């Protein structure tokens, strides 16, 4: 999942992006509103964290413009302004949640997770998928109660597919949402991850949970039970 972080305080930006990357997100960062807006419009962002007090273009304006231009990914406002009139203004501008500085890192991560889940149509952090149970908060996968060990990138691919059920997901989309802009991408790697995922999740190959649609992409085949 790809997160856009617009925060003008470099120290906070750095610490936050470290945490986000550790948690398995691809992170794009910007220190001002105009560049942030550009990234939000042009890149396949899954969630944005926007500080309200931004140079060049205020955070509220960035949010409004993103919404006006049809970007509907979840937006989390991050600001020092803790008054409700500011919170309401942020949410009315189109943000989905609000975290005030200073914040507990676990709290922020929980909010980001919740927003991601909701955007994927999952109200609860536990997703049941046939015999599989995916704990979106703990980033763990179980088959009939037995935990399956996945690498970070394998989990990222699975997570993205779970968040986009009943959609055909292209290899390009997968790599865009898993890697950051400046990473060295190779769509063949995606095929490798998909192959490994299939082997780990379904060694017998009887479920055929990840369909390959030749020339188009992949689709999660099992019906989700929220």
């Amino acid at each position, binding site marked *: 999942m790809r997160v856009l972080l617009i925060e003008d*305080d470099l*120290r*906070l930006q750095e*610490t*936050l992006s*470290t*945490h986000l990357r550790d948690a398995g997100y691809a992170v794009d960062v910007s220190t001002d509103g105009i560049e942030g807006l550009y990234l939000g419009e042009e890149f396949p962002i899954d969630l944005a964290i926007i500080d309200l*007090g931004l140079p060049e273009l205020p955070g509220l304006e960035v949010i409004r413009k993103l919404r006006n231009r049809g970007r509907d990914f979840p937006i989390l406002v991050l600001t*020092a*302004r*803790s*008054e*409700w*009139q500011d*919170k*309401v203004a942020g*949410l*009315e501008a189109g943000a*989905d*949640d*609000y975290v*005030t*500085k*200073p*914040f*507990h*890192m676990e709290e922020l991560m929980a909010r980001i997770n*919740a927003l991601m889940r*909701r955007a994927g149509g999952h*109200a*609860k952090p536990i997703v049941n998928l046939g015999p599989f149970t995916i704990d979106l908060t703990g980033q763990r996968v179980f088959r009939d109660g037995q935990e399956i060990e996945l690498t970070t990138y394998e989990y990222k691919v699975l997570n993205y597919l779970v968040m986009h059920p009943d959609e055909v997901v292209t290899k390009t989309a997968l790599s865009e949402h898993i890697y950051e802009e400046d990473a060295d991408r190779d769509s063949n790697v995606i095929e490798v991850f998909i192959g490994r995922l299939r082997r780990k999740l379904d060694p017998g190959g009887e479920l055929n949970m990840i369909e390959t649609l030749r020339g188009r992409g992949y689709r999660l085949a099992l019906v989700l039970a929220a």
Partner: protein
Amino acid sequence: MRSFSLRSRLVLVSTLVLVIALGLVGFALNAANYRGAVSSLQARMESYVYLVLAAMEVDADGRLQVEEEFSDPRLVQPGSGFYIYIEGKDKDGEPGRWRSPSSLGLQWPVLAAQNPGQMTFTEPHDGDPGFALHYGVGWQLPDGQIVPFTVSVMVNKEEILQQTSAFRLGLWRSLGVATVILVLSQVLIFFFGFRPLRKVASDVARVESGQAERLQGDYPRELEPLARNVNRLLETEKSNQDRIRNALDSLAHSLKTPLAVIQAGLPLHGGDAESSMQNAVDEMSRLIATRLERAGTSTRRTLAQPVPVREQLQRILDSLQKVYSHKMIQTNVTMDEKLVFYGEKRDLLELMGNLLDNAFKYGKSRVHVSGESLDPDALRPGLQLRIEDDGPGIDESQWELLLQRGSRGDEQVEGHGLGLAIVMELVKAYGGNLSIAHSELGGAEILIRLPST
């Protein structure tokens, strides 16, 4: 000791001045009248001298004879108050005397002998019965010798006192009436003259109580500079207050980002230091939220337009529905659409935001909000808000602690704590109160009452 009001000072002083001035005028008029009466009396007495001189005969030996046929009855009637005496000496030095019939029975007075042609007028002094005019006459006898006579006209002082006292009575009476009229009209003048001052005073009171932002009104030219300067003072004060508030505000906000950096960096270090530093950061955040950010809040209700409560409530509910969308909370609002809050909009949003945030956070599926006006007949009615949820509720043992926390800044941020602490600070600033109870829905019920002003 309370000093006299301006009006009573002015009335008192001007009355005093008026009485003194009119008194002096009275004395002067009285004296002038007396002098006039005296000089007209003197003229009359002179005319009596000539009357008597015309009726007087002196024979060749210098003996005096007076033809007593006066047309003026006052010279004839005894005790009339008008008396004429003539005293002189004949050729041989024998005294010769004559007195008007009116002086019959009276003791012969001491006459001051006058040289011929000399006239002396004397006013009565202590003990003197009246005015006297003495005129010296030298009568030339046929042989050329001159014999001296003194004609004295004497008039009782009652003659003039009657006249002048009647005048004096009339004078003082009319001066008294004039004084009363003038004093009354002064009181009236001051009453109307000071009306703009009273209006300024009541306008300043309105500003003080927050019903007006500045002195507005039609003041007389003399008061305009005062009103202008008071307004300027108010503006300066307001801009100072704004400046302080903004400074505190921006201080609060600029402290938060570095704090966020510290807090975000803590998990990266780990270890024992983390939790104690975490506590310190939490405490600082709490202090900023409950103290610093509220420090600039004015405790006075400014003359903001009354804020429609229902509309702002809806904004909060919409916002919270978004944040807690996964909980599918059902809200139920009981409130008059026309309910208004007399205070700052941001305070209302803050009150409702914090309380409803807790309700959405802890509630399972239902949140009830009800609001009503307190003391609706007051100029600026108060507001009562009740917020309930169907969550686990707040344990009674915690109530006291939570209510106290509002006034303490050293507690850990947790649960209802911080939001409620902010609400407590605000409720206190508005002079209201907050109470915790069990809701019929099964969860917590928070009731805030902000009094009317």
